[in-house]
């Protein structure tokens, strides 16, 4: 008799326990794993759907919840009009449905309180999702690491997690939020109404007690390219900048 565990599929069935609309285009899906699921802030999962004829589609989604949240995993999924998996979630998926999930995945775009800071987070659109996991992780741990999130959205109503982020920033515990809207005027005094640039990064860094130890940038390829160049122009060494990109 062998003590070796039976080979286990890396895929597990998860159940949708809650669905919450975040913005007109982004909805959160809360998933209950069937096996223990331990992850780090910033990691992603693969989701797999299977049609009756056996055809499968899989896509990667970042985790929005913090590792400390509890058993359910939150994915905040943007609906892509020409997508295959995101339209399923937005148009068909209901509480009680099961999908298959693999993960957690990714060992680079991750941050834990123990990694230290200061931390500069730069997100564009749904690129804020893995950064939200880091922000929530920081808050739930009672971390003292200084962190500033620069979040670019088109309009105020597309600022994903807006109320929660503003609440977290109002704690004044070392987390700071800079919003920049690209198609509307700024709403809050220190916010911006333009695309990210080096001056915005310089200003964001003045809110940190020391230069960032790490910078995380996530968004569309065009956004990440612009934001990473803005950080470099603002004096952040390229080696400290970690990026995650999506889209063509």
């Amino acid at each position, binding site marked *: 008799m062998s003590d070796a565990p039976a080979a286990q599929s*890396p895929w597990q069935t998860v159940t949708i326990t809650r669905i919450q609309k975040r913005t007109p285009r982004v909805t959160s899906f809360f998933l209950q794993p069937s096996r223990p699921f331990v992850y780090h802030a910033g990691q992603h999962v693969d989701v797999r*759907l299977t049609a009756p004829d056996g055809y499968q*589609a899989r896509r990667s989604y970042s985790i929005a919840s913090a590792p400390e949240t509890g058993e359910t995993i939150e994915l905040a999924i943007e609906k892509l009009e020409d997508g295959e998996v995101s339209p399923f979630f937005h148009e*068909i998926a209901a509480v009680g449905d099961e999908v298959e999930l693999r993960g957690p995945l990714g060992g*680079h775009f991750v941050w834990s309180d123990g990694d230290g800071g200061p931390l500069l987070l730069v997100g564009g659109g749904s690129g804020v999702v893995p950064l939200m996991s880091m922000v929530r992780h920081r808050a739930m741990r009672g971390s003292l690491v200084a962190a500033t999130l620069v979040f670019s959205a088109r309009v105020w109503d597309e600022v994903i997690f807006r109320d929660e982020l503003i609440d977290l920033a109002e704690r004044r515990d070392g987390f700071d939020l800079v919003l920049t809207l690209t198609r509307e005027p700024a709403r809050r005094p220190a916010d911006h109404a333009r695309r990210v640039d080096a001056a915005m990064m310089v200003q964001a860094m003045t809110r940190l007690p020391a230069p960032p130890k790490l910078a995380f940038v996530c968004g569309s*390829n065009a956004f990440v390219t612009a934001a990473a160049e803005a950080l470099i122009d603002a004096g952040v060494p*390229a080696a400290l900048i970690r990026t995650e990109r999506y889209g*063509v």
Partner: protein
Amino acid sequence: MVTRGFSSGRKPPTDTDARIPPGQYLEQGFPVLSAGPTPHVRTEDWSFTLKHGPRPIKKWNWAEFNALPLTKMTRDIHCVTAWTKFDTAWQGVLVDDILADAGIEPPTAFTLALGFDGYSTNVPTKDLTGGKAMVALLYEGKPITPDHGGPARLLVPHLYFWKSAKWLNGLQFTERDEPGFWELRGYHIYGDPWREQRYTNDP
């Protein structure tokens, strides 16, 4: 497990089935993925070094490297994030021709591809030789743009595309199979898309 309400409406036509590895979907665009900012390497600053362990065997500058025989390669490519793109057209220098110019046979069975940005990825040497891989200089007849790895990137089209290192500045022969950047961060040591070797523990 069949997913309630999910249909195979987007299933690719059966005549392309044989070209799409398991778990992949067909992409018309050319997505960009990278772990850090895009380096802008000027060709006047560019060099390529062939190394055995820490010891340089031969180094080429941009003009010298472009004087090596150019080969065309049109291949399907497969990204671990699940997109497959058909018929990508590259021109570059076969690893065979680099070795010939250096006047050597491969000294070890394993190679690390090295990038200007500090990236590395491991590939067995036999997967680079025999016409299987090149250092690509042109994509669709034009210089490769920085976001796609220009001025020069590795092209190992039969493995997942993270093995095709961007901003390439060298190949280093190693005695052992040494995991590179992503291989140390949860991705498969070899990365065969047809065996769906995406992550560390995949068979």
